């Protein structure tokens, strides 16, 4: 059971209150109409799915209803940091 710090509520809360919405930092292409099918497929379906450090988005469903980012080790499940949407992670995977 993950214990997640919500950067908006500013405290640790239980996993039940949140919903993970997948890999973070996947920006919607600015000009979708000029994307190829492959580029569009990449945007909607293809994921890094790393074993190790991953940046992902969480939604504080029952709390403040804000999305935010989490850097988590998908192997140990350790949460390394949380940061707001629009910010960049400090902890990143090597290589």
């Amino acid at each position: 059971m993950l214990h997640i710090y919500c950067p908006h509520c500013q405290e640790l809360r239980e996993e039940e209150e949140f919903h993970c919405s997948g890999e973070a930092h996947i920006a919607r292409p600015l000009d979708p109409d000029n994307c190829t099918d492959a580029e569009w497929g990449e945007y909607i379906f293809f994921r890094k799915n790393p074993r190790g450090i991953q940046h992902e988005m969480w939604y504080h469903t029952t709390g403040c209803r804000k999305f935010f980012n989490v850097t988590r080790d998908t192997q140990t499940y350790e949460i390394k940091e949380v940061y707001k949407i629009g910010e960049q992670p400090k902890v990143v995977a090597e290589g």
Partner: protein
Amino acid sequence: MSQKNRLQSGGRVDRSKALTFTYNGRQYKGYQGDSVASALLANGVDIVARSFKYSRPRGIVAAGAEEPNAVLQLGATEATQVPNVRATQQELYNGLVCSATNGWPSVESDWMGMMGKLGGKMMPPGFYYKTFMFPQSMWPTYEKFIRQAAGLGRAPKERDQDEYDIMNQHCDLMVVGAGPAGLMAALTAARSGARVIIADEQSEFGGHLLSSRERIEGKPAADWVAGIVAELAKMPEVTMLPRSVVNGYHDHNFLTINENRTDYMSDKAPEGQVRQRMHRVRAHWVVLATGAHERPLVFGNNDVPGCMVASAVSTYINRYGVVPGNKLVLMTTNDNAYQTALDWADAGREVVAVVDTRSNPQGERVEAVRKRGIKVLTGSGVIDVQGKKRVSGVSVAGLDAKGEKVTGNVQHLSCDTVASSGGWSPVVHLSCHAGVRPVWSDEAIGFVPGPSVQNQLIAGGISGTYALDKVLAEGAKAGQEAAAKLGLQAAEVALPNVRKVSEGKPMALYHIPHTKPTSRAPKQFVDYQNDVTAAGIELATREGFESIEHVKRYTAMGFGTDQGKLGNINGMAITAAVLGKSIPETGTTVFRPNYTPIAFGAIAGRNCGPLFEPKRFTAMHKWHVENGAEWEDVGQWKRPWYYPKQGETMQQALDRECLATRESVGILDASTLGKIDIQGKDAREFLGRVYTNAWAKLAVGKCRYGLMCGEDGMVFDDGVTSCLGENHFVMTTTSGGAAHVMEWLELYHQTEWPEMEVYFTSVTDHWATMTISGPNSRKLLSELCDDIDLDKDSFKFMDWREGTVAGVPARVFRISFTGELSYEINVQANYGLHVWEKLFEHGAKYNLTPYGTETMHILRAEKGFIIAGQDTDGSMTPIDLGMSWCVSNNKPFSYIGKRGMAREDCVRDHRKQMVGLKTKDPKVVLPEGAQAVADTKQPIPMDLLGHVSSSYWSATLNRSIALGFIKGGHDRMGETVYYPLADGRVIEAEICSPIFLDPKGERQNV
């Protein structure tokens, strides 16, 4: 039978409180404070089970959670049956009823045992993979027999009447185990001001000290325990949970504890009490002080009743005042177990010999035993046990220095009890639950917890520390360390005084060799519950199952209800020995929750039956109940499905509801629709981005239907959104999709377009929504509303107005899902029932008829309107649905779904497209889900053209109607397709427009 093995005095049982219990149909006596196991032993009951594979008689071997054999069926009544209760963990209470789970006709004389003897030889590990294959058709029969033989206890046949619950806890420090280490840790942290929870599975705190004869501060250890417990009990920030198994230790220091609140005193929880409670604990720090389990040694016929773990024997004597036999042979690899010989002798019974595998044992306890005149056979081992239903003697042989070979002569000793000790295995289980592998310690001759990423400390037996003074010191240190990490000023706690006992070096030995090779020696059991023997493990490795995980899975070692607490390390050692590897190289299997088994009911808590999931009600719910609605579950909502009148079939009710609506006026409770209030200057632009159609020109006072797609261009929701003000809209969503749509809007706003000035707030529950529909709806509304001009040219189709209905301020939307003149009245939900009832008061003369979801579906299908989730399944674009009118290609912003719909596969020909379907025989209603083919003669698998998504009897049209999908359907109007049914019938249908009624839409525009 008398309690022939009960001592006159001593132990923690209360001899003034005699209890009666029933085992295998016979009555026995025990005392308050007994476990079922101690009471059975007191009464001289030897056999408590038959082994699973060979059906050999089995007795009690241990005294705690690690017991593999004494697994009983408990329960005095049918509803209170509990399968597989460990006799060593169940406290005795008056009237307790239990029985052995295997053995036919009884465990005492078991016929299967005969089979076991005959067939046993043919049942090496994995034998079932090698046989029962021929003939193929016989497997189900073989399987039936296998299944009947398998399994221990049985499930109850009547429902559990007890209550269970779950409580969420938070603490600074969770201490698992209340032995000396845990108590010291808890005390130290608590004195430092920490919020502490301490739990122990046993009935009393104290751990090993409850069965030990050691002294602390010059007093019996139990007195010291009582003092600490009393101090902890006074501290408000300490929660003490005895009889509470910490069954799982999960990520981020989340633990679950199963607190047994009543089943130590009765079958069924006393009225008003909760039988078991699960605590879900989030701890900042955790101290694991779970102690160690003693390992028995593996030797020939070591499963004959009377073979026990040495410390268990001591526990029965010291804690329960029960000596489980008369003549003891003790085999040990270490000094510590000599205490058992002393305890046995002190109980006034004969110690035949101590058999020590070491050649030259010399510690303090060894000397004490020698001094008592007890024979000590050194450099020796018990290689075989005689006796069938109880030990009658042992064969002892000299061993080589490593304990690998029998060297000396074999001598026979007669005895009725064999206690063995191969050293101790730290209880590392919880430390492994979150994915950490334990590491081998040569010093402890056992696995200790591996390094954890969690805030976890360990103390005492779990770290391989057994000397009491060190255990206490480690406990205190862990408590202090936790306090310091928590930012508290760690309290200094004086370490209690205990006498140190000097001990000789233990020997690392697990498996006692026999004069014969293991494959031919008498069976040497490693895992009793699954009948795994040393020979079986050797065979498995010989066959190539070399990884310890393969050994586990091939032999079933550690698969039982005890999860190999007693046998695993021995099995790993034997595997290592055969492979010529070290134990750490061989490794362990994975310990996982639960530490000991937990009742499903306890895990489920209150979330069963009526509370399994919320039932969501609208403001008019009471009226629906009173008016006989049948219900449809829509998400968590309870929605009226239809309202049958006395004696009506469902179809009759639907026909009546449909006709009433089409001919006069019907009413639907539409409150469950999701509603989102949207405000901000960019609200309109935002709508344009999340809907597929255009919103730029929707004027204040107007409503518009919209489709929502994912980035893949597939429709996932729809609804009407109305412009309340230039910067103000209210969006409706499907009942089931409301939460998802809300999150969807927030997702795009917060992560993609945060610069847009728009806010969303759910108002689903705030508005009660009732739709009156039918040619008389205007008349009806006009009777209750005089401040809206209802004139058709003033309040047009797809307009909304604010006004007062039945005295209540309302927003009235002239939208229609039925194709009739309709008004959707929205009022603040506290007034919903009032307005609803007023409508009925006035509606009687128009035969105002309530209709439910089913009639709504029929009426909309007559109009060809889709239901998202029924007619869509995530694979349809708006174009597939024939709704290109709802897709705008001139919006400047590439809205969500636009690019997705343009992908190669989404624009190809012959996609499945939504059409109407008319059966050739109008009386026949197509079943929903039926699949169309062009030709019924084709071989299977057939070319399927598409399915029927909605299908009804239309009373209005006096025929059946259906919506469905057909490959390339939009270009196939008028063609015939065939629907083969399960019973061989084929329904013929013609592809047609999905709009069956009033294609020009005149009825809603009146």
